[in-house]
């Protein structure tokens, strides 16, 4: 049950926290197609539009491809647009994702991280959003419902910044975050209004200043537009940090920018995570620390833009590091692992890294699983190189033996 009182703590699910954050951000248009486990977001938003507590057009579309198309239509007249999806739905709008980022449309989308078919599964992992890493969207992974609400508001500030103008995807772990109820602080509307002014852009359809929208280019100009997208994404790193700083000043909550570290300062063994599993990892770190083992956890908040420097600075001093991917690029390794390794390349001392592939299709990752990861990280620096490379990619919590 959600309340409408201001300055209040409410007991809501991650999905509901996103809906509350969207309402506070005053979008003009919401276009979405329901899909488990995102459905509650759009149910709540449609109720808010119906009861008049959110003045917006809610467009019932027939597919995710249309949801993104309608959001682009809204964005191209300078309106603030929101959509939400998950899994197969995200892939169905894949064409639109590239279109929106190329068109520099600051659409905000919530994605409920869910496994991809086949086998069919409604449970969570990161294979949906990680496979869209190259679509030109800023990607943030939140850890709890409060961060989901706060990032929804910050998302518009970041995406709509004139130096960024890039769409932003907020990722919540399916069920673990979308359907778990937590106490969430809802900031008052006036304060959100002062943090997030109405969107204004010269790049829109307008009768006063008519423009050609979404034109094609010959090879003579195309690359410049792609460079601009890259530049905007790189520049968004400072905007993200500034948006977090100002948010903290007004609302008293900060998320430390692109990464969020726990006990990393003098850590010898650091596990890199994203999303809700981080909470479990913190408990495992406490347990390791109580045994005198210097463990730490580095949570990647933004996968794009990638926190290259932050990751390098944090991991360079470690004896070894692990990357816990709820994803795998078949035939190679987890996508976060690839990105982390790339950030470390070229540094004087590169610690050994192990890639833990876990949680695929919603499989649990327990405190004990993570403690075992830290144990593996303790052993790996001493292994000979061949042995280390052989066991560099490890599947966590497999139900069967995979040693043939």
């Amino acid at each position: 049950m959600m309340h409408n009182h201001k300055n209040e703590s409410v007991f809501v699910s991650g999905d509901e926290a996103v809906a509350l954050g969207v309402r506070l951000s005053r979008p003009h248009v919401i276009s979405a197609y329901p899909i488990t486990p995102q459905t509650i977001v759009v149910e709540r938003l449609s109720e808010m539009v119906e009861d008049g507590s959110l003045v917006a057009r809610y467009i019932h579309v027939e597919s995710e491809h249309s949801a993104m198309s309608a959001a682009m239509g809204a964005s191209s007249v300078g309106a603030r647009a929101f959509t939400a999806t998950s899994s197969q739905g995200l892939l169905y709008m894949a064409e639109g994702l590239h279109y929106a980022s190329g068109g520099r449309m600051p659409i905000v989308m919530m994605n409920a991280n869910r496994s991809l078919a086949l086998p069919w599964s409604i449970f969570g992992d990161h294979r949906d959003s990680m496979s869209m890493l190259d679509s030109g969207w800023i990607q943030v992974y939140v850890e709890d419902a409060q961060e989901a609400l706060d990032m929804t508001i910050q998302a518009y500030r970041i995406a709509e910044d004139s130096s960024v103008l890039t769409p932003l995807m907020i990722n919540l772990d399916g069920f673990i975050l979308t359907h778990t109820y937590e106490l969430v602080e809802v900031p008052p509307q006036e304060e959100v209004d002062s943090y997030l002014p109405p969107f204004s852009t010269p790049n829109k359809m307008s009768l006063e200043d008519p423009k050609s929208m979404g034109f094609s280019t010959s090879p003579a100009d195309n690359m410049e537009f792609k460079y601009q997208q890259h530049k905007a994404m790189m520049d968004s790193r400072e905007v993200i940090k500034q948006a977090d700083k100002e948010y903290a000043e007004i609302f008293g909550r900060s998320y430390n920018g692109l990464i969020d570290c726990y006990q990393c300062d003098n850590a010898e063994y650091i596990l890199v995570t994203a999303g809700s599993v981080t909470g479990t990892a913190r408990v495992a770190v406490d347990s390791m620390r109580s045994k005198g083992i210097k463990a730490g956890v580095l949570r990647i908040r933004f996968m794009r833009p990638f926190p290259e420097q932050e990751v390098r600075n944090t991991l360079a001093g470690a004896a070894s590091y692990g990357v816990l991917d709820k994803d795998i690029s078949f035939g190679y390794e987890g996508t976060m692992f690839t990105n982390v390794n790339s950030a470390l390349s070229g540094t004087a001392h590169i610690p050994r890294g192990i890639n833990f592939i876990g949680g695929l299709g919603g499989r649990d990752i327990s405190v004990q699983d993570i403690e075992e990861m830290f144990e593996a990280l303790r052993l790996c620096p001493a292994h000979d190189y061949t042995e280390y490379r052989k066991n560099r990619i490890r599947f966590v919590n497999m139900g069967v033996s995979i040693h043939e």
Partner: protein
Amino acid sequence: MDKPELKNFTKPESIKDYPVGPSFSGGHLVSVNSGWRTFKPVVALDTCTGCYRCYLVCPDGVIVKTEAGKVAVDYDFCKGCGVCAHECPFDAIEMVKEDLQK
């Protein structure tokens, strides 16, 4: 309908002066795209009656009406397909081989 006036697009020196995303005022001639034409339509103005059939059928919309009540071809965009010449009821358009050495 009158032909809209075309503005030349000069490639900016700096990336900063590029339009932000594909959003820009229309009517810019970015590149002349008729490099592949081997025959070009030439209108015989004394035979042309100004019936405007070619104007209607040109798939690229590059035939323009002139003040004299006749037609002219915008060679920057004409692809040389010959539809106009084929369709002209008065045989007023001849397809002339391009001098490709030029």
